[in-house]
């Protein structure tokens, strides 16, 4: 699971959970995979992101050192900024671990890089 996906994931499909965002991460295995840098795509995603949630996620997986704490003005033309965002959003991947619902504490296991968002009968 890339941190871009994590930034979009919620647990509000659980009955009774209001926001379910952002999900906590406890990772036991994190990988870095090379992905081609596409400045257009990264720029387009910036306004959709919850930046503080991204910073927190990067911290949780031990990759926050390079990431600016805030979105810089005129980021569209700031290649250095976009490259750092690209790295954290698309190259860092949680392979094994858990996502944790901030409201209910419910854990969603991540196996083989795939978060398991299946619910039990009583959570629907």
């Amino acid at each position: 699971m890339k941190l871009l996906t994590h930034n979009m994931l919620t647990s509000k499909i659980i009955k009774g959970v209001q926001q379910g965002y952002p999900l906590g991460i406890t990772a036991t295995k994190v990988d870095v995979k090379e992905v081609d840098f596409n400045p257009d795509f990264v720029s387009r995603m910036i306004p959709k992101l919850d930046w503080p949630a991204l910073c927190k996620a990067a911290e949780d997986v031990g990759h926050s050192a390079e990431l600016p704490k805030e979105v810089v003005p005129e980021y569209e033309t700031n290649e250095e900024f976009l490259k750092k965002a690209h790295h954290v959003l698309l190259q860092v991947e949680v392979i094994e671990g858990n996502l944790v619902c901030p409201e209910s504490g419910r854990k969603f296991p991540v196996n083989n890089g795939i978060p398991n968002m299946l619910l039990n009968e009583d959570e629907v």
Partner: protein
Amino acid sequence: MAHSSHGRPERSAPPEIFYSEQEARKYTSNSRMIEIQSHLSERAIELLRLPDDQPCFILDIGCGSGLSGECLTDQGHYWVGIDISQPMLDVAVEREIECDLILGDMGFGMPFKAGTFDGAISISALQWLCNADKKFHNPPKRLYQFFSTLYASLSRGARAIFQLYPENSAQLELITHQAMKAGFTGGLVIDFPNSTKAKKIFLCLFAGGASQQLPKGLGTETTIERKNQISFTEKRERVKQIRGSKNPKGSKNWILEKKERRRRQGKEVRADTKYTGRKRKPVF
């Protein structure tokens, strides 16, 4: 999936059982399957009408081993796939698909924050949601939960395109009814409705925004559109395939063809009249 020759897999077992490790491998290594799924996916992506030359963020629902999503990658888009079968997703990981995957059940809802995706596609998967595979499953409720959470996860004006194999018209009616109830507009686009082999059904949904025109089915003259209700009984006429014809540029037929192409993508096009493509008198 070749529903005509193999019977309906939806009737044999729940999807997470049917798409076992063995089936996942068989499915993904079958060259005919790959060809069919790519073809369907390309048409669905055409119907999405994404902005030109812009990498988009797309959701692939029932993504399986990634055959449909790969077509998105080929066109320069980024995507997240969700599927209920771990074996199918494991095959996708093995094939080093360029995207991100989630194990989830459509019927539980789409677990994303509001406005995440620029569009969604779903190839040969939605009909599975009409089954009640567990005692607590209620298909109308699951469909509604699915569509309402999908609606929220799309950006305003985005489209969701579903290629599906409904078992009968009642199923199709239930699906579209629940989609409209969840706030979508749109309707069905049926390609080659008069051919038993080539006929393909696409449910095209629009998530709010400015009103959009329903794209035209291939090999048809009329598509079916209702704002709230969809009927499936309208007469359709056969029309010659227009692609690849050689009308001289600027001629009446050339203009009609071009308008036809744009209609198929669901773009705004002025109605054809007797004045279309007529030579203008020189003005003095």
